[in-house]
């Protein structure tokens, strides 16, 4: 803002301030009511939701699915979607640092004297986009399940095959419904619409790299292998 704009702002501000009311008791009343509401919310949450501990910290576990607190879900989801290893440090350090620097320097690159959101469209749109992106990433992060669980509803005769799939590590590379990872393998939610049952079985035994071969599963436990193929054949 240049000098004229600053003086114009200050002039207008002091007129409005003069027409206002004293801080005590008018603003203090609103602040006190809000403080009481905040305290009430915290107390009610504590009574209703409690403070149960999870199981004790066990560094030797191999079955636990780590998750951060909900307010870090947006970072967590960012780490899940940025897959190439060379870009990992951009997701962990780069993006958050750039965002913090942009936030701190905001008053220095936004020198527009306008304060009404409709009269400063760039700032308003940037703000709404950021909020929407963070909300979307947070929700996606909350929905990300562990790689040994398939939530897609299925007919009872395919339940056993679904369990075989969940425990065979397929979700590490494939997506089925809301579960699993979006790579390096293609999503399998509608695989039966693309491949007939025989082709599915052939792919399991003789896949394209980097997919591992499940021929050993077919040799050692043909029943489970067939259940798996049946389940995959039901995913239309």
């Amino acid at each position, binding site marked *: 803002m240049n000098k004229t704009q600053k003086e114009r702002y200050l002039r*207008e*501000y002091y007129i409005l301030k003069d*027409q*206002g009311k004293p*801080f005590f008791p008018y603003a203090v009343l609103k*602040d006190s009511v809000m403080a009481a509401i*905040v305290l009430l919310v915290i107390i009610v949450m504590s009574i209703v939701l409690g403070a149960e501990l999870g199981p004790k910290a066990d560094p030797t576990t191999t079955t636990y699915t780590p998750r951060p607190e909900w307010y870090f879900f947006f970072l967590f989801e960012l780490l899940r979607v940025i897959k190439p290893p060379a870009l990992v440090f951009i997701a962990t350090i780069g993006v958050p640092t750039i965002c913090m620097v942009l936030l701190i320097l905001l008053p220095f690159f936004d020198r*527009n004297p306008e304060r009404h959101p409709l009269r*400063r469209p760039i700032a308003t749109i940037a703000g709404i986009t950021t909020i929407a992106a963070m909300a979307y990433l947070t929700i996606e992060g909350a929905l990300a399940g562990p790689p040994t669980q398939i939530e897609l509803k299925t007919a009872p005769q395919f339940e056993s095959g679904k369990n075989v799939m969940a425990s065979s590590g397929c979700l590490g590379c494939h997506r089925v419904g809301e579960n699993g990872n979006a790579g390096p393998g293609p999503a399998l939610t509608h695989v039966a619409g693309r491949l007939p049952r025989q082709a599915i079985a052939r792919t399991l035994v003789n896949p394209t790299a980097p997919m591992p071969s499940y021929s050993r599963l077919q040799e050692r436990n043909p029943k489970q292998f067939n259940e798996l193929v049946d389940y995959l054949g039901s995913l239309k």
Partner: protein
Amino acid sequence: MKLLPGPLRRRGRDEDEETPRRGNGNGWRNGRTVEADEDAKEREKQADRERMKAAALEVPIQALGYVDERTGAGPFLRGFLFRKVPKGTNWFYTLGSATMFAFISQAVTGVFLAMYYRPSAVEAYSSIQHINDDVFLGQFVHGMHKWGSSVMVILVFAHMGRVFFFGAYKYPRELNWIIGVVLLILTMAMAFTGYLLPFDQRSFWATVVGVNINASGPLLGPYLADFLRGGSEFGATTLSRFYSIHMLLIPGLIAALIGAHLYLVAKLGTTAPFWLRAEKKRDLAREEI
């Protein structure tokens, strides 16, 4: 008698000597009719009560005067409490003080939790279980602290969003915005260091990942991770470090920065809402800048 000043002269007795009795003693008393006399007595009693009230009020007034004379706090408090807030100040403006109040709630519940918590890798989990199960209102205070942290994070982002959309970070409040962003970062750091302390599965692994995120920075990252962990492995000193950072280092910084933030808010004033425009007053000479 006559030598005593008016207010201290006792009623009823001295008058006798002054005004000779009149009449026959019936229907007259002290030179007045009975009704007039009783009215006069009522008024005297009321005047006495007023005097006593004024004398009683003198006590706190003189006490405050004693403190004011020795601290000079009167003008400061008057300026702070009775300053004007601009026309149109509404409920959006309460988010900032609500955040500070959530912080105070966290500080107070944190102090009480710290009286029972044992910051050792072996005993931390069982000390929290002890708080939950055995201590009177333990689970309640623990719950307030745990959910209070989520409430505080929500409020601090809501406050930041309000300031952003109201354009309240522009001239002359740029420094206040910078202090606010630093407070936001410190709040997230409090949340990060705090949730290791219960030392359950979720705490432990979330912290492992968080420290390794720090390690991913080129060149200096692994050293920063070593500093947080107190070594190359997650060990005995890691929990103590996080406890010290969470209890002492960051709350001190937050308290100091909140003080600076409030000083600037009181000095510069809060902005008027962006939908208000000042009516042009014809008499501009009365403005002060």
